[in-house]
């Protein structure tokens, strides 16, 4: 599993998390290229099915990044997002998947360093967890084929 580079999807709200990501970029603070950002007007737009589909298509980890609690530009979109992340985590638990593959993160627009740091931490966490269970089978199959 040495060369495993996780594929991470990050749903970022336009008003806070995406702006923070922008700030990280303009300040030349780097964060892992594993993180693919999807900009949404508000994390309240992210539904449970979006997270599930990302995992279905092979994402190793998904996080939803929104405004700080109480500061959502649209009042409580980030609270709805948190509930939906928890809903997905319940499904993952029932399926025997690691619930840490999915997370809710809060930050303000000015937290460029924080954005970069959390992106790095999340990527590292997923690296330790290994590839998504649906990819693992294929990797095992390939390794078996190689050793034979």
């Amino acid at each position, binding site marked *: 599993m040495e060369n495993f580079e996780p594929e991470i999807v990050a749903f970022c709200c336009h008003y806070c998390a995406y702006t923070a990501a922008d700030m990280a970029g303009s300040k030349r603070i780097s964060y892992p290229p594993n993180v693919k950002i999807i900009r949404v007007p508000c994390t309240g737009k992210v*539904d*449970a*099915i979006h997270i*599930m*589909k990302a*995992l*279905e298509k092979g994402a190793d980890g998904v996080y939803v990044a929104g405004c700080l609690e109480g500061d959502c530009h649209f009042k409580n979109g980030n609270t709805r997002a948190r509930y939906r992340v928890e809903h997905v985590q319940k*499904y993952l638990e*029932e*399926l025997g*998947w690691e619930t840490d593959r999915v997370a809710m993160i809060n930050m303000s627009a000015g937290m460029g360093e924080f954005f970069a740091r959390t992106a790095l931490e999340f990527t590292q966490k997923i690296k330790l967890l290994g590839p998504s*269970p*649906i990819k*693992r*089978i*294929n990797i095992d*199959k390939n390794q078996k084929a190689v050793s034979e």
Partner: protein
Amino acid sequence: MITAEQKPLSEIIEYISPYDRILLVGCNECVTVCAAGGRKEVGLLSSALNLHFLKQGRTIDIKEMTLERQCDPEYVEELVSEIDRADAILSMACGCGVQTIAERYKEKPVFPAVNTKFMGASESQGIWAERCRGCGDCLLGITGGICPVARCSKQLLNGPCGGTSNGMCEISPDVECAWCLIWERLKALGMEKRYEEIMEAKDWRPAGGGGPRKIIREDLSL
């Protein structure tokens, strides 16, 4: 409406594991309202099942469909175009819907994906509570609009029992004593005298005691 809750995934997976092609059918009425089996939940369940089977290196073919209602033959008929491409049907409707599908498509196994719970109403967003037991002889007119059959833990018609505590039922401090509620309503309506009238022993036949029930309206049959 009829409330339901999704079954544990492990149980659903056990039902459908032997099959390769599943027709997953939701319902646009009651189970949509209580977020257990509507279009959204169909999508989520389909995704969750895919995640499970992909993890085993197996692809399963899930066709998603949501009918207006599953308890009417006309709507269930709409599945006819998909039925031959399915090995089994997984229904997210209440027990009534599951059975209507099973009756129509006798050659395909049908599995329930939700546990049907009770007839209830929304108390507030996300909270549904039991309100009706379908006793077939509604007495809400004489109990101030509160049902002792559905809401009293002992279905007393001459309550309350001696176990009330702060207006709550003896079974839990979170369950209101139906008879305390009834008494408050009767007072508010100026109908206290009604309380002293003894409600006679109930005839449970209309409530299902006489066997499975049916309503026949000949004026409505073509």
